[in-house]
């Protein structure tokens, strides 16, 4: 019976050993109860998942194949929305490029700053707790408030350019300059690097001290200690931050919306603001859904690449043989 094999994986039967196949059609009352509670406790999540995630996702696949203004009946157009986005719409490619640019710079930059700060905060210095608090603080400020403050910070004669002026650098007009608006968004993202720092710091705290002691006896410099002891031990957390950072960067929305609304000349328009405008300002739900799925594919591809390459550089102690 083929279904016996399938049933072996049924959650309710998880505890059963493989050898007991013959008695499987009769569940003991204890296992029945267990199965009942399994479904009872998982159901809130399952209902939420099917009703509010899987359902809308399937619906959006359908919508992406139609032309729909959200008011009148959708009209089937096949793959036209996809071909339009990929071949005709210059804004789509611009937005995709902007999104890549942002992700390609902000994610690595955030990780480098995060590791650097975490390493500093891991040193036994006075006021360490205070510094830790300060570095995490930006993450706690609501994004809208941060963005408003950054409008002032990034003003052409604002504090940031004043600071650059001390070094003889004539700062650009950040948010109103096509070339500099994306770097401006990246500056804002770097400000929130404290979130990654906290995770990395806890990973660094978990590194056994004897590894450093042994390294010191062998005459390793602090730099060497960092690369040969600290870094390999925190790669799983770096990897986690990389994946979350990639997904977050590809989905950047609020910062763009508040700071520039995508301008000037679409220079800061990224994928999510693009699909938001298409859906909720121009009433092109079909097109917006197609853009959403294209973005999904892009994120999926990059996440896969990250996972594939992770074997080469992510170190799990439990895997050491």
């Amino acid at each position, binding site marked *: 019976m083929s*279904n*016996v094999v399938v049933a072996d994986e049924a959650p309710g039967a998880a505890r059963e050993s493989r050898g007991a196949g013959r008695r499987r059609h009769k569940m003991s009352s204890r296992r029945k109860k267990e199965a009942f509670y399994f479904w009872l406790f998982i159901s809130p999540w399952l209902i939420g998942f099917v009703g509010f995630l899987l359902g809308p996702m399937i619906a959006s696949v359908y919508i992406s194949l139609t032309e729909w203004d959200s008011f009148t009946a959708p009209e089937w157009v096949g793959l036209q929305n996809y071909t339009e986005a990929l071949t005709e719409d210059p804004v789509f490619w611009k937005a995709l490029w902007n999104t890549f640019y942002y992700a390609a710079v902000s994610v690595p930059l955030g990780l480098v700053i995060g590791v650097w700060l975490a390493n500093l905060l891991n040193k036994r210095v006075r006021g360490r707790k205070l510094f830790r608090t300060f570095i995490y603080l930006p993450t706690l400020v609501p994004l809208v408030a941060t963005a408003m403050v950054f409008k002032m910070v990034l003003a052409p*004669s*604002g504090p940031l350019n004043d600071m650059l002026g001390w070094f003889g650098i004539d700062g650009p007009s950040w948010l*109103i300059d096509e070339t500099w608006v994306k770097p401006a968004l990246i500056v804002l993202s770097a400000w929130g690097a404290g979130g990654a720092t906290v995770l990395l710091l806890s990973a660094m705290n978990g590194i056994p001290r004897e590894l450093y002691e042994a390294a010191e006896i062998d005459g390793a410099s602090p730099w060497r200690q960092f690369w040969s002891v600290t870094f390999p031990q925190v790669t799983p957390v770096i990897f986690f931050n990389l994946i979350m950072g990639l997904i977050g960067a590809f989905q950047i929305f609020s910062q763009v919306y508040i700071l520039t609304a995508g301008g000037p*000349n679409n220079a800061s328009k990224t994928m999510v603001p693009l699909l938001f405008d298409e859906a*909720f300002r121009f009433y092109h739900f079909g097109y917006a859904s197609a853009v959403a799925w294209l973005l999904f594919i892009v994120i999926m591809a990059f996440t896969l690449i990250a996972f594939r390459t992770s074997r080469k550089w992510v170190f799990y102690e439990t895997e050491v043989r």
Partner: protein
Amino acid sequence: MVDKAQWRRGAGLAATVLLGAAALAACGGGEAEDDGTLKMVVWGGDLDKETYQARIDLYESENPDTKIELQLIPSDQYAQKVQTMIAGGDGPDIMQVAENVNSYSSKSQLLPLDEYIEGAGLNMEERFGPAGELYTFEDQTYAIPDRSGAMILYYNKDLFDAAGVEYPTAAWTQQDAQAAMEKLTIPGEQWGFSGAGWWAQWWSFAYQNGGQIIDDSGKPAVNTPEVVDALQWANDLQYKYHYAPTASEYADMGPDMGGDPAFAAGTVAMNATGFWGIGGLLESDINWGIAPLWGGKEQAVSAFGSGLSITRDSDNPEKAFEAIDFLTDTEAQTVIIDKAQDVPANIQVQQSDAFLSPAWAPEGLNMAAFGESSEFIFRAPFIPEWEEMQATFNDNLGTFWNEGGDAKTELDKIQTQLESVIE
């Protein structure tokens, strides 16, 4: 024999899917029972809420059997929320609409009101003047004007006196305005004008030149010499003559800085904006006045306003129209000006003492400027693709407004793009 464990699992999944579907259905089916209450949605802030509610209270006290439930939505979320309501089959009875009215009417989400207008014996021309035609689309009326005021010119009397310039009047031409700006500008410190980067401002210049954004046959006409000259002039005032602050200079003044706050701070001598400017200025220290905007080859100025419409979801369109009729009649419209919210669309109210000398106005404020301007308001093209048209302008003119540039080049690009946007 079906394996029991498998059956259970199947049943569990089926139950989950069913429950999930039920949860979804419940979201869609949240329609309230019809108890004669009218739902009315408007956008705005506290003052708007207070004013609309006061008008509704008037209506309810005269029609005790009808209740109107007011829902105020913050302006930046309005379009999205209303769209969701309508798409969910739960549109309001009465809905405030403005420039993008025909995004809805062209998709038959609003009821044509002509029958109701006729049935109620409402004379649109008599009550609203030219504004009565503002919300018609393909010969049918989709909204009744509710608020409607021309853009007017605010000027700083002290700065004018100090520079020895006569106060502006409707008789000014673009050249007069530019000459005044020159005298009113102190480089890097004070500017003669706040700039004209907003559609309502530079489009006024285009129509003053005799141009049109969308021509009479419904085609875009934005790269005609008239429109090009207007846009170039507006830009030159900022980047060639420096009579108006540049984008960088505004950004340095503070976050979300623009003409209105800069005028209230006394840094710019003239600012063209709507009635709402008054609210901010009543509390400012500067000595200000208002006048109609200058003209060009002809006089033309844009207007701001909104109308009240009835959505196709309304269970009770007759009652909803009765309410709109009342809300746009003299008594309820007077509240709009008493509370200093906006210019009422009703022209009888615009000509009344209540409007011309409101209790809150500073001594000698020329409220007649609104009535005077109403004679040369141009009719902005409220096409169904309004939002996309605006986005096309904003996208292409981003750098132009931030750094200066050539109007013809930009408008040629915009013309091509608009031709594909507008069917």
